[in-house]
Every structure is written in structure tokens, then in C-alpha cells.
């Protein structure tokens, strides 16, 4: 099954069998005001010449319950789940726990702040930070 990292790695091998990974619980520096557990969403971070992208998996979080903030070059993402959907449901067999999501990253400041975009699809949040002009690589022609 080891057919990953072949070529440029633009697409992870679809033939690979998926494994289960336990959700990581957050050990917060400061306590949350609401009780309950928080989990750390799995993240992918990649960079192209034009932008930095942060992709976070937060299943169960709706658009309205998502909060993204950039303050002092720290990106903070908070996603709350609406567990009222579980009302009147009696758990009989469980393999994972549910909870709010929270994660933060320190970013460099070379981004165009007003052009940051966010997109939530199928429980995956994609944040794109376009690089400021001066931070983009400049091709130097050799004369």
C-alpha cells in the first residue's frame, strides 16, 4: 500500500487504506469559559508562491458557529458544535467523543490582511492568506 510520495505529491494516494486516529484533546493554556472538552482539529498547512493555506478538519461545525480571528499575528480558530442535535438520543455504542474545536497558529505578518479568505465545506475549513507583494518571490533575470 505504500504508493504515497510518488511524483510531486499533489494528490495523496487514493488507494491507500484509511486508518483510525484518536481525536487529540486540547490542553489549553487558559481555561475556556464554557465547560466541556475541546479538541484540536487536524490541520494541513501549505504554501504556494502567492499564498499560505491552512486547512482544518472540524466535522459538525456550522458556518455560524465558526470564529476565525487574526490578532498580533496569531491566527485563532474556534469552532463550536451544536450538540442539541443529539437531544433525546441515548448512546449505546461509541467510538469517539464530540466537543468544540480550537487551535491557534503564529503566522508571519507578510500577508494582505484584507484579502484573507475562508471557506467551509464538508466539515473542512480552508483559510487562504495571500502574501504581500514584497513577500512574494521575485524572479531575477540573469543578463
Amino acid at each position, binding site marked *: 500500500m505504500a504508493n504515497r510520495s510518488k511524483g510531486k505529491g499533489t494528490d495523496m494516494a487514493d488507494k491507500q487504506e484509511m486508518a483510525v486516529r484518536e481525536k487529540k484533546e486540547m490542553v489549553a493554556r487558559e481555561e475556556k469559559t464554557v465547560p466541556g472538552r475541546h479538541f484540536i482539529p487536524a490541520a494541513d498547512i501549505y504554501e504556494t508562491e502567492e499564498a499560505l493555506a491552512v486547512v482544518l478538519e472540524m466535522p459538525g461545525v456550522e458556518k455560524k458557529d465558526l470564529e476565525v480571528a487574526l490578532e498580533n499575528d496569531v491566527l485563532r480558530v474556534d469552532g463550536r458544535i451544536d450538540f442539541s442535535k443529539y437531544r433525546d438520543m441515548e448512546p449505546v455504542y461509541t467510538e469517539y467523543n464530540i466537543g468544540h474545536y480550537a487551535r491557534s497558529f503564529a503566522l508571519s505578518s507578510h500577508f494582505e490582511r484584507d484579502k484573507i479568505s475562508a471557506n467551509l465545506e464538508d*466539515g473542512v475549513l480552508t483559510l487562504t492568506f495571500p502574501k504581500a507583494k514584497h513577500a512574494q518571490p521575485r524572479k531575477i533575470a540573469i543578463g
Partner: protein
Amino acid sequence: MAVFSDPVDALLNFQAALDAFRTSNWLEAGPSGVGAYPVMNVFRKGDDFIVIAEVPGVTKSDLDVQVKGRTLRLAGVKSVSYPEKASVHRRERLAGRFDRAVTMPIEIDPDGVKAEYRDGILALFLPRAESDKPKTIKVA
């Protein structure tokens, strides 16, 4: 249900309830393929069962749900892709194929099954087949 008695601690209590069942051996003879992707939680609502699975990043069209008798099969593909020239700093999201079959403790009415997929969460409503429901016997 007692779990929701206090609105402030409701989530905390619910999480504790979920955890309690993770260590229980209910369904021990039941679900085949424990530890397989995707992880699922099973709930009961009256006579019927509800299975909820977290499959973030999987598109609706890549999900395949089948029900027969007592068995539920959940298969699909999850793909993670990056732009052509991207340099990847962090890679935590998993990708690949999955196929899991679970045996439920009830006979399922296949025509009444409903599946909903939203925000990376798949919810399956599995109604108990009429023939499987217990009959009340009047004591004469």
C-alpha cells in the same frame, strides 16, 4: 433523558456519557471491524437506531451506504490534495479508501433508512423492522 437535566453542564455530561460507553462492551458480539475508519457512534431513539460517523472532507458523492438485514456498510474515498507547486509545512489530515461493515443488534427496515450528510458528519437513521419489534402478549 437525565443527561440533559442541567443546561450548563449538558455538554460536559453528554461527553461523559459518550466516554462511559466507549469502555462498555455493549455490542461486543456485534460490530465487526472495530478500529476501522470511519469511527462511529450508535444511538438509540425509541425503537430505532441512529449511527453517526465523522467523515470530514469526504464529498457526498464519494460516500456509499448500504443496508441489508442487520448489516450496515459504509464505504468511500477521502482525498486530500494540494496545489501543484505547493510546499507542505504540515500534513495531519489522512486520506484514502475506507470500507466498513457493522452488524446492528436489530433487523433494519431497508426502505425506511434515511441518510443525511452535512458539515462532514454522516447521520444514518435506521428504523427497526416491523417484524423485529417485540410483541406485547396479554396475560389472560
